[in-house]
């Protein structure tokens, strides 16, 4: 048998190929089982780019369902809280065209505020809040935990007495940072860092005086 294979070149090649094919097939099959990925990794990546406000403005009940829909081929421009930046990031990830936002863009981050005198304690907003950011009990005044509120305004509609306002979120001094300068042709609006740079010309003559 072995001699026959060794003598017959074509047979040797076929056997070798068969052995190779079988072993690689086994290897691939094992790897497929061993390194099996639970769930769709693309959905995770898309979900990570979405703003997680869980507002449902895209027509899906939360950000993850929308991420799943996008991976199935839905449009990437249905997320108003994310705005242009999210669309650009999604287009970048998925290699799709950037599209203008479908719907109205949110200009400033907002936060829900309950006018507490008017609240009747119906708990409807508590049930609507996707991130459990509203505190309260039946027939007791409710209030919004500002730091947890994502500004999705899902609580506004269910309120029977319209006592919830969406207010722009206040920025603390810690969140403040320098704005980008206006660019060439403009005087720097904030002058501090370049103060001394600008006085080089007049300062040259005065150097001796200053020591």
């Amino acid at each position, binding site marked *: 048998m072995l001699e026959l294979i060794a003598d017959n070149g074509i047979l040797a090649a076929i056997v070798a190929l068969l052995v190779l094919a079988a072993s690689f097939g086994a290897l691939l099959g094992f790897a497929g089982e061993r390194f099996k990925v639970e769930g769709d990794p693309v959905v995770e990546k898309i979900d990570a780019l979405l703003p997680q406000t869980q507002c449902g403005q895209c027509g899906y009940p939360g950000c993850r369902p929308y991420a799943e829909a996008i991976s199935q081929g839905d449009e990437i421009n249905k997320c108003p809280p994310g705005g242009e930046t999210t669309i650009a990031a999604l287009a970048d990830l998925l290699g799709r065209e950037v599209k203008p936002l479908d719907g109205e863009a949110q200009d400033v981050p907002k936060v829900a505020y309950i006018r507490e005198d008017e609240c009747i304690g119906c708990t409807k907003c508590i049930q609507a809040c996707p991130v459990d950011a509203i505190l309260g009990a039946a027939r007791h005044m409710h209030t919004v935990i500002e730091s947890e509120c994502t500004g999705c305004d899902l609580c506004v509609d269910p309120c029977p007495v319209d006592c919830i306002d969406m207010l722009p979120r206040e920025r603390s*001094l810690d969140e403040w940072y*320098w704005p980008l300068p206006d660019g060439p*042709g403009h005087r720097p609006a904030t002058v501090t*860092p370049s103060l001394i740079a600008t006085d080089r010309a007049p300062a040259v003559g005065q150097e001796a005086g200053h020591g």
Partner: protein
Amino acid sequence: MAKAFDFPGGIHPPQRKTLSTRTPLIQAALPTRVVLPMDQHIGTPAEPCVEVGQRVRTGERVALAQGLISADVHASITGTVTAIEERPVPHPSQGKRLCVVIEREPDGDDEWCLMPPLDWRQADDDTLLERLMHSGVVGLGGAGFPSQIKARVRELHAIDTLLVNAAECEPYITADDLTLRTYADDVLEGARLFARLCRAERILIGIEDNKPEAIDTLKQAIDNVVTRDTQSEPPFELKVIATRYPSGGEKQLIKRLLNREVPSHGLPADVGVLCHNPGTLRAALRAVRDGEPLISRIVTLTGEALDHPGNVEARLGTSMHELLTAAGLKEHELARLVMGGPMMGMALDSTALPLVKKSNCLIAATERELPAPPPEQPCIRCGACEQVCPASLLPQQLYWFSKSREHDKAELFNLFDCIECGACNYVCPSHIPLVQYYQAAKGEIRERRHEAHKAEHARHRFEFRQARLAREAAEKEAKRQARAQAASRVATRTAQPSREAAQGEDAAAAKEQVKQLRIAQAAAKAALRKAEKALARASEAGEADQDDLDDLELQVATAQENLRATEARLAAAQQAEQQGETRR
């Protein structure tokens, strides 16, 4: 003098220090009103612990530190708390902050409330650290980092050198110079206190050669210490370096004196060095030796709009206007008020602001002295900025990336290693406010990171809520099924046995369901274990901040809810299966 090494780049701006070094250090008049902002340090603002109307004595604590990086605030005069409200504070955005306002009757005494004095040579480390924590000492060089955290550095890093940063390289500022001239002994003793806390083997003093008087005084003081104290451990070493901006930068000074390079995103502690400003050392020593919390600081009042520029030791919270007026402010000549140095400081739009722990210098400049900057011109790609960058970055590249908001590329070019020294601004022939571009880019990147973090947090909360709702629904369903089965049992007892085949099929389906639910239960258990392990790992490592730990706890709770939901479903299915078997 030991061999000096060098850092790349650097510039030689006009010094203008003699303006404020001609007169000795004086004590400022006691103010009748102080405004104490809650955020005079880096980190979380403190929380007021006094009430309006309460009488406080000098040195009494008026606000408590919050969180890990924070510092207490103490009353700097004796008087009555008249308001706790938002007031304008020195901040580049000219914004407001919560402040405690204390007023004193014009002829009222200055009654002190001191902590008991400690001898740092005898006291143990914990006592000293606690004292530093309760005395509100922060870095007085301008950054305001709480000192007790720096003193704890030994817990994570081995320190061999305590570096006293007396370079004071920015033009105009002379506060450290005058501190050393006047209180050299205190500074040296403070250095020994910190050297003991961090177990440093030597104390290195780095000073620029434009402060000859301070150098002489220091030499004298070191000789005195050596002759007076036979056991003068650890040894002092004074290194005088040529004046060049920004050798007072922590990383630059370490490179220049020790030839060690602080790694990117790292701290001086990573290369075994702890850096302190002389003023901070003196404040820490006073807190320990005299029990006196940080309620005053030495500030340089300078600029050509002042008649008598000089250095004063003033109580924190004193109105800048009061200090400047006492130094002979010519208000009609004042064109610009700057807190800090002219390279890195911030312009203030009013003199009605309080002196804070971070204010090392106030420059009241005339129009001629610091004229308004000319309009920004396009970049001509001359590369001058790259030549002077002390951090070996590529300022021009960073400028393009910041301008076009290509943040990932800017980070790739080590934007966060920029120390914002302003050397590139200084040499730019097109007057581009480069540092402001970098600051804007850094701000945007930080904000984006913060947003991403918040989104992640919201997602965890949403998932937890979903899991909770699913669990509640599953439990409700299980109960409903149990009730239905109880009812059907009664019904089957009376009714005729129904078709056997259909029942067999039902049983098979129930078995299949139970099997699937068992798998789901195992998966849920594994997920719970994984979440718990992640939480345990993070809390053991001790590096994750509270928010991250909260998120991990939330994930554990979500996994628990999921497990309970599958268990409820499984129990219901098992019951149904048993029911089917008994019926057959």
